């Protein structure tokens, strides 16, 4: 169970599907507007429970406790063979045949 003071991710539904702005396209109007904020947990709580956290600017946010110790997992992605081919093509166009032999 995440403890008081742990760094957590809190999520909230800001607007329900029926409350969306009139100008949003149909697909967006059918889904809620969701918010994610990180902060220090104010009291022990389980994942999925309502909890409060203090953010880096000192605001207190309340919502569903989604994750403990949220990490970054974005990367450069899988190998893209087309990009290697593009690089080889550019070198060839610039420096001529045999450059990449």
């Amino acid at each position: 169970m995440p403890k008081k003071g742990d760094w957590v991710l809190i999520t909230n539904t800001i607007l329900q599907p029926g409350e969306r702005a009139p100008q949003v396209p149909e697909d967006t109007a059918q889904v809620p507007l969701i918010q994610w904020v990180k902060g220090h947990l104010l009291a022990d709580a389980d994942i999925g429970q309502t909890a409060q956290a203090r953010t880096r600017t000192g605001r207190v946010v309340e919502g569903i406790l989604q994750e403990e110790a949220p990490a970054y997992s974005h990367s450069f992605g899988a190998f893209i063979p087309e990009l290697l081919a593009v690089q080889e093509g550019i070198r060839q166009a610039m420096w001529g045949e045999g450059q990449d032999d």
Partner: protein
Amino acid sequence: MTDMSYTAVMGRRNQIMKAAVGLDYSQFESGGIAFDYEALMAATGLTMDQVMEVMASFSVGNTPLIELKNITALARQYAKPGYGARILIKDEACNPSGSFKARRAALSVHMAKQMGYKGVVTATSGNYGAAVASCCAKAGLKCIVVQECFDSRGQGQPEIVEKARKCEALGAEVIQLSVGPELFYVFLRLLEQTGYFNASLYTPFGIQGVESLGYEIAQQCRSQFGKDPDLVVATNAGGGNLTGTARGLIKAGCKAPVVAASVDLKGLHMASDRQFNRKSFTTGHTGFGMPFTTWPDRSDVPRSAARPLRYLSRYVTVTQGEVFYTTEMLAILEGMERGPAGNTSLAAAFSLAQELPEDQILVVQETEYTGAGKHQNAQLDFARKNGVTITIGDPLDQVPGESITLPQHPGQIKARELDLSRLRRSLIKHALGDSAAMPVEKDIAFLSEETGAGLDQTRAIIKELLEETP
């Protein structure tokens, strides 16, 4: 208790903004279509020298102006004899936060500090968030960045996820939202709750900050190459990059025309939850460029200081595949690995340079940082996983959101011209709104300045539009 419902908060929009920008916009209004744009720009009270001092205090600006000799040589292979202008690039990735947005942020954060705000809020999914976070870190101000990041399934655009990381690395609180224009509602609530400064991209502070970029380009070009640039290409989204750069060039006495360049994302709806993750560019594209060029005041302040149609001489588009290709070109031929979105103008420049004689100089006015998520490899992998087809072939053989085609050879990169008369007409149509009457002379003169069309042409467009109105 204050009503925090969507309708109530949106209804308080003007008073919230007035408190959060420290500027009373009503003083610039005429009561009609026109407002005093130059008075708005002068409201910062800063001279160019003072702007430069603020930049220096944040270690922003004075970035290198680099000649891309290999890319120039390659472009000449596809130009007629004697053609192919020298291509220079302003390496804005060298700013502390990794992009030209540092210039916009520096002046905004400086003003926020001077006016006594304790913190700054900004609504942006782009490099601007990191720029504001970076300047706030140095100024000792609190910083909140609000970004549209995920679709409703919680899947984040890798480039925006990376920008969130960077903002947090620089000490900011990041509030992430799913897709939708109601981000503005969350933003207004925060401004009201915190009493912080709104570091909008569209205040005169933000735009005057970018003037330093145009000013530096003119000065560096003169000292390094002994002449003014003949053409400057700027990536265009919200219009601030182009507006600020053009104004800075003018202030330096440089007459180089400025060309706007955007990635063509025709057909994709920017507020669509489903289409959000089917685009591989989160800025620098027509999805922002077109609406902001034809109606600048759609921004988050009462009057936008970014008014690109006043300053652009041409507006061209390039495809996603062409920009990714050009990003590889910059890496493999010049040894510079930079972020793809910032290379939109470089892709256009590669084509535009071929129209100009060899002794002319074309300046690409920005680069941006690159890294995990914010890289062509990450973007193409993400696109592929979202069902977008990636091939090598004819760049024109692509449909935004469906396919990305990387060119087979550099000769296929082509800047495609947008029809300025259509953009002018669209801006005037927005300005007229529901009015069925011919505007007064002052408003016609204003619309002529807004669109860059002559007075007679402006009158003719208005007349046509009024006749169309049922």
